[in-house]
């Protein structure tokens, strides 16, 4: 267990950034999101939830795949290179770390997504325990411990200090490079334990933490799919992509081409199942109504994904959709709606 005073953090960031890229929560134009560290950046570790999750660091919102160049009648293809540089993501929370596990199941299973895999290989995650969890959080529902992020390095905030503990080899390696700035503090264990307990106490008080997911599993397909409840639930939905874009586990992307003069670059970008052209094909669209699109998102999180991943849900209870949905719809309301009407059906 190492300790570093908050006031020395910029020295820590500088030292990390000397050797590799560093992404961390930065406040810009009033909003906190993960961004590359720079001396001028306004680092914001106080805001519990960045607007977007740290998903971008591993699976960017848009990313080049390859470029086709044309010279006269000759064509050449230049693939985009894979991530080669090591980098650190600092300040993720336990839920976001779990979110990566959800993405891993998708992108690292065969056929492996090489772009994602390269980023995972080169990335070291320093996650922070949630000092003050909020009413929109429900990570506990998915077995996540807000006080113990399953990252390479875990960090706890206690008063004016941060406590630092490497949990993996990658974490050890990172610690080696920055150790010079740390103080050893064996007594820290106690302080950290107190912080963990405080977090657990708050978690118990939060309104969503004891949400029941009973009945939601990979086997619930037709029962849930055919429920008339969807018809009521989707109605306020604007069909925007906010929930999917702030979500740490949404993984759908579209592949598009951009024509730039004499070259065409093929890139992929996040897609949203809320969009009317999601999975649009030549014949049209599988899902023609917003109800179907709305249903898709929650069925995927709570039924389809568990069906394919040994019961694991693809929601981590970060609560970003709860906070950001323009019309106050979210996965919690969906689950509750089924609970309330469970008996009536």
């Amino acid at each position, binding site marked *: 267990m190492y300790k570093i005073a908050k006031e020395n953090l910029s020295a820590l960031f500088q030292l990390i950034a000397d050797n590799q890229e560093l992404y961390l929560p930065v406040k810009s134009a009033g909003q906190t999101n993960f961004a590359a560290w720079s001396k001028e950046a306004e680092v914001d570790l106080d805001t519990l939830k960045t607007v977007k999750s740290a998903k971008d660091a591993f699976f960017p919102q848009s990313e080049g795949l390859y470029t086709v160049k044309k010279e006269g009648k000759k064509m050449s293809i230049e693939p985009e290179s894979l991530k080669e540089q090591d980098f650190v993501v600092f300040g993720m929370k336990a839920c976001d770390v779990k979110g990566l596990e959800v993405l891993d199941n998708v992108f690292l299973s065969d056929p492996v997504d090489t772009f994602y895999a390269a980023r995972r290989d080169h990335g070291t995650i320093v996650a922070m325990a949630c000092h003050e969890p909020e009413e929109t959080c429900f990570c506990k529902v998915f077995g996540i411990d807000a006080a113990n992020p399953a990252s390479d390095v875990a960090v706890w905030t206690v008063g004016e200090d941060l406590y630092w503990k490497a949990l993996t080899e990658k974490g050890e390696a990172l610690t080696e490079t920055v150790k010079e700035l740390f103080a050893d503090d064996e007594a820290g264990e106690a302080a950290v334990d107190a912080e963990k307990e405080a977090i657990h106490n708050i978690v118990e008080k939060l309104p969503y933490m004891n949400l029941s997911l009973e009945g939601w599993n990979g086997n619930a397909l037709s029962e849930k799919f055919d429920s008339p409840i969807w018809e009521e639930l989707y109605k306020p939905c604007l069909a925007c992509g906010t929930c999917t874009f702030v979500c740490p586990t949404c993984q759908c992307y579209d592949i598009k081409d951009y024509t*730039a*003069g004499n070259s065409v*670059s093929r890139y992929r970008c996040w897609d949203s199942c809320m969009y009317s052209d999601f999975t649009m094909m030549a014949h049209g669209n599988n899902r023609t109504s917003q109800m179907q699109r709305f249903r898709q998102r929650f069925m995927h999180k709570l039924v389809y994904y568990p069906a394919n991943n040994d019961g694991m849900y693809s929601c981590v209870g970060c609560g970003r959709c709860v906070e950001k949905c323009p019309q106050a719809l979210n996965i919690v309301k969906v689950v509750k709606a089924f609970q309330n009407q469970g008996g009536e059906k």
Partner: protein
Amino acid sequence: MPLENKEFKPKIVAFCCNWCSYAGADLAGSSRLTYPADVKIIRVPCSCRVNPMFILRAFEKGADGVIMCGCHPGDCHYSTGNYYARRRMTLLFSMLDYIGVENGRTRVEWVSAAEGVKFSDTMNSFVEKIYSLGENVRLGDLRCKQ
């Protein structure tokens, strides 16, 4: 023309209405009134056919200046087209100015079929302005700059 930066060859798109300005450009041509080759003309039936999307598209793809020419107000071949175009462009240019794009990169000029001289004068002064502003870096897609 001041050529401070000799390497900079601006890309300039000129939208010209078929009835007045395009004919004005033809007259400039047949009168051998020169203006820089940086200007490329796109023929549209009327200035009211020019969608703000076209102008932004030109900037996206690397244009350094976009000029739109139409019939003088009151002389539109379709009676009222240039009036709508005038309002549209005024608002669009104002918005571009508002977000910090140099004002001189866009222009509207009314050029009649008989104004070959005005056409070439306009293009000369516009190109000169673009040279003075230099490359457009605020309103382009970087992928097109490579």
